[in-house]
């Protein structure tokens, strides 16, 4: 349902742009490449904006049909590279960056939050609570800039751009190549983790504070169970539930931060690609990336729902 709506959005937006976007577009291509557009190019731009030849429903069917067959068209700025090729190059990098940073940030944030919520008012809690509030409010892209300036330019600890060392052969089975991925990815990843974990920390802390005052935690203590057992088996396990659902729901928001970070670090992922496409008015690429992101978010939601059902027996009967 949502996916269908996203598809339709995607279809409609370029068709409702004011003026003659196709003409503007062609002019811009000309500026960009310095050559008059080829007839092929003109045709593909016209087709994209719907031209005047087909009526709207027919265009819509055409558009859906293309999608079903995974025909995403050709990139306009890097004509005539197929969009799918550009995406295929960028996707693994983003997956790598988003995957590792999200998981690490989630684990760090949840663990620290659980500890803070267990003893609210402790020194640890008192110091960390205001700090995380501030960290959480920092715009990711700005912190990326600062990090880039401080650690890459001033201190020279990390490379300034890219995802791997261009001097090392591009082979997945080459250890040096893998190490260079680590080296190039470290700074963007650290930045993302540094900002990302705060949100998890706060939700976890607050849920934990509430859970700790539940009667069953009190009773677990009355049972004489050791502290760590009460903490893990009774308090943290139950407090974890909202953070699990949150993980999936946050994927959409996390992507926003990652996209910007990629731009700052010139990291060759989807975000960078999307940014380039936006600047170059490469609409087919923009459309496809958007669809991909929507799809990811939807899948993440599905996964979170099923994990939640696994963790919480109360939802099982209703399902």
């Amino acid at each position, binding site marked *: 349902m949502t996916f269908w709506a996203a598809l339709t959005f995607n279809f409609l937006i370029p068709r409702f742009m004011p003026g003659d976007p196709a003409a503007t577009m062609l002019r811009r291509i000309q500026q960009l490449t310095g050559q008059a557009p080829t007839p092929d190019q003109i045709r593909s731009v016209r087709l994209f904006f719907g031209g005047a030849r087909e009526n709207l429903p027919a265009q819509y069917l055409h558009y859906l049909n293309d999608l079903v067959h995974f025909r995403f068209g050709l990139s306009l700025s890097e004509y005539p590279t197929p969009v799918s090729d550009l995406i295929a190059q960028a996707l693994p990098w983003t997956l790598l960056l988003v995957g590792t940073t999200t998981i690490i940030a989630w684990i760090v944030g949840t663990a620290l939050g659980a500890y803070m919520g267990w003893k609210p008012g402790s020194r640890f809690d008192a110091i960390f609570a205001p700090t995380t509030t501030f960290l959480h409010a920092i715009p990711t892209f700005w912190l990326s800039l600062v990090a880039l300036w401080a650690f890459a330019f001033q201190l020279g600890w990390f490379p300034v751009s890219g995802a791997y060392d261009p001097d090392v052969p591009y082979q997945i089975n080459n250890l040096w190549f893998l190490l260079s991925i680590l080296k190039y990815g470290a700074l963007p990843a650290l930045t993302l983790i540094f900002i990302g974990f705060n949100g998890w920390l706060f939700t976890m802390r607050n849920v934990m504070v509430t859970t700790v005052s539940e009667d069953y935690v009190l009773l677990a203590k009355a049972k004489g169970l050791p502290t760590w057992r009460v903490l893990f088996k009774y308090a943290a396990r*139950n407090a974890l539930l909202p953070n699990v659902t949150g993980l999936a729901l946050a994927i959409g928001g996390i992507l926003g931060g990652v996209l910007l970070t990629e731009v700052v670090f010139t990291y060759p992922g989807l975000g960078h690609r999307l940014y380039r496409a936006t600047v170059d008015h490469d609409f087919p690429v923009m459309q496809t990336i958007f669809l991909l992101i929507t799809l990811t978010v939807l899948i993440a939601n599905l996964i979170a729902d099923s994990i939640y059902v696994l963790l919480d027996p109360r939802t099982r009967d209703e399902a």
Partner: protein
Amino acid sequence: MNEVLLEVDGLTVEYLSQTGSVKACADVSFTLHRGQILGVAGESGSGKSTLITALTRLQRPPAVTSAGRLVYHSSDGDKVDLLTLSERQLRAYRWSELAIVLQSAMDCLNPVMRLGDQFEDVLRYHDPQLTQRQAWERAEELVAMVGIGSDRLRSYPHELSGGMRQRSLIALALACDPDLIVMDEPTTAVDVVMQRQILAQLLQLQDRLGFAVVFVTHDLSLLLELADQIAIMYGGRIVELGSAREIYTAPKHPYTRGLRDSFPPLHGELTTMRGIPGSPPDLRTPPSGCAFHPRCADRLDACDQQIPLLRPVGRNDVACLLYEETP
């Protein structure tokens, strides 16, 4: 029967806040014997629930036990003040000597653990030799004692009915064969028929296993049938302490009398009854002197200045200026 199990002496619990402290329990003292049922009756704000958490040392900030002694007499003759133990030392007493049943069973059972696992958890911690199988068998025995089928051990708390949850909580309290069970309104959340059944089971089990009970409730009429001794609390203090029969037939404190007369009888003559006019005190701004004096029909001039102490009057202990101490 006359062996002392728990001596409570001058127990005081305060709730701290930025603006000062509120005494929810003040100078509470009583002695509980082995196998005895002590009923504590009181209305909202009387400090009865605070007493429960203080007895079990489960109070949470901002509540703090600021004075008193809780001397526990072990079956081997050792005496120990529970308030001086560290959390680690106390753990040895928890559940194996001193168990607790709380009001809302739904909130007391971990919603994401099967009922049987919650039994197994506590059984195997207190007896590490127990295998999983043995623990499970013991759990089956325990729930059978309160009339629950062993197949229910595989259920999650939300799949059980209210009465079943409350009974399984009692079974859970019995798991380590404690000498004392503290109960906080254990039947308030269930219906009268179920309440009757639970209390009947409780009395049978108590008869068989010989544990002592501190039973806290707002329902005095229930205690009159159930308890050996009854303590009446008002405004954080015990105002009267005596046997159930004395409390019913010859209440001394005006509050006790008023409370007894707040329950219309089910049988016998019906007359217009009054209850007690006024409202229970707000503990943040407690009345001076005896907390009951603003509602008391028999008050003396000194009642708003002097806090009366609990002392023997006739066969009861009463905290009221109306009475002379009987030597």
